[in-house]
């Protein structure tokens, strides 16, 4: 158990010593993630594994203990996170050549160390130490020595610090209440507090929820990913978006859900009010992030907002508090790791080859990078939730759970977000991979082999999980049992819901779709021959655009892709524009601070301060 923490920690310091040999460093990084994935794989089912150390100083009458435990929930997140890291690591070896080297491997190893710690922590002290380590190390990776990235990273860090402070405050309050740092005990004591002092208990869990919402970028903290994800190193963005956005989700499942499930709370329809509040936050997040994603022109920003929207779905699923909903949320967490990693890696391959992040400056890359295109295509089919790929199953489960709990307007928000997802996913597909290939990219090559391997694995993984959902639902059974829910063992092929006669056999769905494909293919094959002609041969009627002083790639319709739609939303976008809020906030701070500085820079102010000081002294002395 301890080895999981020791190995990344030691290699982190080891690799710092040999930072010059980048290829070796990244290979070590790959080896460590491989080791972690293997070790975690062998740990499945051994739920009695634990480790603890007693420290010398006392608190609440006992020695302070730092402890780790292998819980099904922690294992579930840790295993899939390390699997994702393994694939990204393979990609990173190829990505970090002389030109793109970000030199972040040692810090990343520290991040993995804290990652494991968060998922296996048994007490609040361990959890907090690891949480803090995670927030800080991520800052250095996002910054990675670039000025513009450092700005984004500062933004991330300041938001993160708010989250860590509320977490610290929450831990202090809760452990004072329960007289111990153990997470399980603090859940019980909070449940008790809910029956005696409702508003205090709400404040306590509110502090924790704030932390988790900040880390998962749920409304009202939805804005930091668009900066941090976009400016971090291209191979780190998938980790940031898929693994690190799940810490908040993990925290919610670990701590908030058991409390809400066990406490006696005022109800709103079929579920409790705090849970409903959470669902509404998730719904607002996914709708808002979807709308914002549709209008982005920078592809990394677009998918940053898309990640925010996806975490919104997960929160909606969790808030249903039902078996199907939590199953869907956990399933979607894994799916999001898989398809979003595939998307970010294929885009990283595009950026690696072209050095361009603006979608409208690219185009027609399908001719040069067909494999990358295929990976991206399958990943967006999965992300849009289209069967027979994996994203569909989890979205379907969440929608079914929301409908069974009669959360009517939340489920409409979910459908809005997932239909809108279709718009931004296709925007990137059309602008980057389809259309005309600009002349300057005439001789770029397919992604290198080491990049192609992890991308292909991810592509096959999303297909396999889509056809055989049991790969994920079986471990989820263990998680749900560990959380105290009564679950039937799930089948390999079928997913169940709470609604009557609505179960779905996904393997069958795949077969049906395949037969339909074959019919369609036969129609295609028996009809007449086709001839392949150049794009400009058809719609410019054979005339050469160069003769009219323009180039074919000017015909790409990419920049204002959803312009009419955007005009509809402009008033709303102005209203929620975060930049404007921040600048007005900045102005207020500036005024207040300059007013404050007058107190000690000008003599009248100083005399005033003196009198106030004397007055305080006199009053204090009298009391």
């Amino acid at each position, binding site marked *: 158990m301890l080895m999981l923490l020791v190995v990344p920690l030691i290699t982190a310091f080891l690799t710092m010593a040999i930072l010059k040999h980048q290829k070796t460093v990244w290979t070590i990084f790959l080896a460590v993630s491989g080791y972690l994935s293997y070790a975690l794989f062998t740990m499945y089912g051994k739920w009695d594994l634990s480790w603890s150390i007693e420290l010398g100083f006392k608190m609440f009458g006992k020695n302070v203990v730092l402890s780790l435990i292998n819980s099904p929930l922690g294992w579930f997140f840790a295993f899939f996170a390390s699997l994702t890291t393994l694939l990204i690591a393979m990609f990173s070896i190829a990505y970090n050549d002389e030109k793109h080297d970000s030199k972040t491997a040692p810090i990343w190893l520290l991040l993995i160390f804290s990652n494991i710690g968060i998922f296996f922590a048994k007490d609040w002290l361990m959890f907090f130490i690891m949480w803090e380590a995670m927030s800080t190390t991520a800052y250095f990776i996002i910054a990675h020595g670039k000025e513009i990235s450092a700005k984004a990273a500062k933004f991330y860090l300041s938001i993160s610090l708010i989250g860590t402070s509320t977490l610290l405050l929450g831990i202090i309050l809760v452990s004072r209440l329960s007289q111990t740092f153990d997470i399980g005990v603090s859940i019980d004591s909070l449940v008790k507090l809910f029956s005696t002092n409702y508003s205090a208990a709400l404040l306590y869990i509110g502090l924790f929820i704030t932390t988790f919402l900040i880390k998962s970028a749920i409304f009202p903290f939805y804005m930091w990913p668009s900066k941090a994800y976009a400016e971090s190193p291209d191979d780190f963005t998938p980790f940031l978006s898929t693994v690190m956005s799940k810490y908040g989700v993990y925290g919610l499942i670990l701590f908030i859900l058991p409390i809400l499930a066990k406490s006696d709370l005022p109800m709103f329809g079929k579920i409790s009010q705090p849970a409903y509040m959470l669902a509404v936050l998730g719904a607002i997040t996914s709708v808002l992030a979807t709308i914002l994603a549709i209008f982005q022109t920078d592809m990394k920003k677009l998918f940053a907002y898309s990640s925010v929207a996806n975490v919104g779905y997960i929160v909606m699923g969790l808030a249903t508090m039902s078996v199907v909903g939590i199953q869907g949320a956990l399933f979607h967490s894994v799916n999001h790791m898989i398809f979003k990693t595939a998307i970010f890696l294929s885009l990283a391959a595009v950026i690696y080859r072209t050095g361009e992040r603006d979608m409208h400056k690219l185009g027609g890359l399908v001719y040069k990078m067909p494999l990358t295109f295929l990976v991206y295509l399958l990943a967006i089919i999965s992300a849009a939730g*289209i069967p027979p790929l994996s994203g569909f199953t989890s979205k379907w489960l969440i929608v079914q759970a929301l409908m069974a709990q009669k959360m009517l307007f939340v489920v409409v928000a979910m459908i809005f977000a997932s239909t809108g997802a279709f718009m931004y996913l296709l925007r990137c597909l059309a602008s980057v991979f389809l259309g005309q290939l600009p002349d300057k990219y005439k001789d770029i090559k397919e992604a290198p082999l080491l990049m192609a391997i992890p991308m292909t694995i991810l592509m096959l993984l999303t297909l396999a999980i889509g056809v055989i959902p049991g790969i994920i639902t079986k471990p989820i059974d263990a998680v749900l049992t560990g959380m105290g829910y009564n679950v039937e063992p799930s089948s390999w092929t079928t997913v169940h819901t709470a609604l009557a*006669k609505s179960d779905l056999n996904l393997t069958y769905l795949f077969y049906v779709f395949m037969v339909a494909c074959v019919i369609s293919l036969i129609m295609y094959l028996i009809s007449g021959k*086709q001839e392949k002609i150049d794009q400009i041969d058809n*719609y410019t009627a054979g005339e050469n655009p160069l003769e009219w002083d323009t180039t074919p790639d000017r015909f*790409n319709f990419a920049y204002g892709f959803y312009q009419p739609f955007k005009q509809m939303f402009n008033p709303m976008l102005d209203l929620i524009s975060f930049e404007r809020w921040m600048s007005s906030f900045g102005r207020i701070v500036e005024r207040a601070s300059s007013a404050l500085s007058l107190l000690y820079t000008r003599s009248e102010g100083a005399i005033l301060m003196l009198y106030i000081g004397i007055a305080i002294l006199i009053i204090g002395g009298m009391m």
Partner: protein
Amino acid sequence: MVVINIILYSLFAILVGLIFMGIGRKVSARMHLRYGPPFYQSILDIFKLMSRKSFTHNFVMDLGMVMALAGLLGTMLYVPIAGHSAFISNSNIIVIMYLMAIGSLGMAMAVTASGNPNATIGISRALTMMLGYEIPFFIIVLGLIISNNSSSISVIAASQAGSIWNWNIWHMPLGYIAMEITLQAMMGEKPFDAMIAPAEVASGPMVELSGKYLGLGLLTHAVSIFVETGLMVNFFFGGGSNPIDFVIKQLGIYLIAVIFDNIFPRYKIEQAVKFLWIFPTGIAVVQLLLLAF
């Protein structure tokens, strides 16, 4: 056995869809005081298009067109036809909604790959329109699911069995009105045909398609007509007692759409989305609230 069933059902849907298109053309012609082509004209068109030589720009176009037809055929197989379907399933509505998207994705991919700006503008409009009509459509579906406590179309259709007075059109008239408007947008008929708009974007998605690609596109459209009218019959008209009854009901619904198509001008895309989000959505929400409380 199931495979043969699937093939027969697919051919049936394609044939019905094509004949509907032919009848629709005849009806529009009569509304224009023309004579119009025979009702089987669309079938002849398909044979003509499929046998001609055609132009492609790259493999994505071929892949996309095949994917579009396959997606729609897959969707059609999940729609129960008067209680019959090609294989045993729960005919889940959410599956149908998402499977239909694969057809749109394939079509969008194929025509964007052609590189013609008109086609891409058409696709961007089509996707915007999709966001417009999915919201009212889903709210109506949600009402049906809540009142039946099942997301299976067979259950919804079976709940209306018996007499004509059990049909949902009498139980939820507001839902029916909203669905009728939404269906117009789903089928891409006027006033919601901004994505095709021959006068503005030269038929949008179809502009680069020739020969068998246009043929596959027409087949896709035929199947989508079958699916959309089929959903309507199952939701509001009792699902039909036998396949002939089912098809006649479908034809009635399709003809209403064709008549509206001929008497309305075209909305701009943002007007269409606003309209869809205000009127059908509003009506559907009222219906949903009536059902839920």
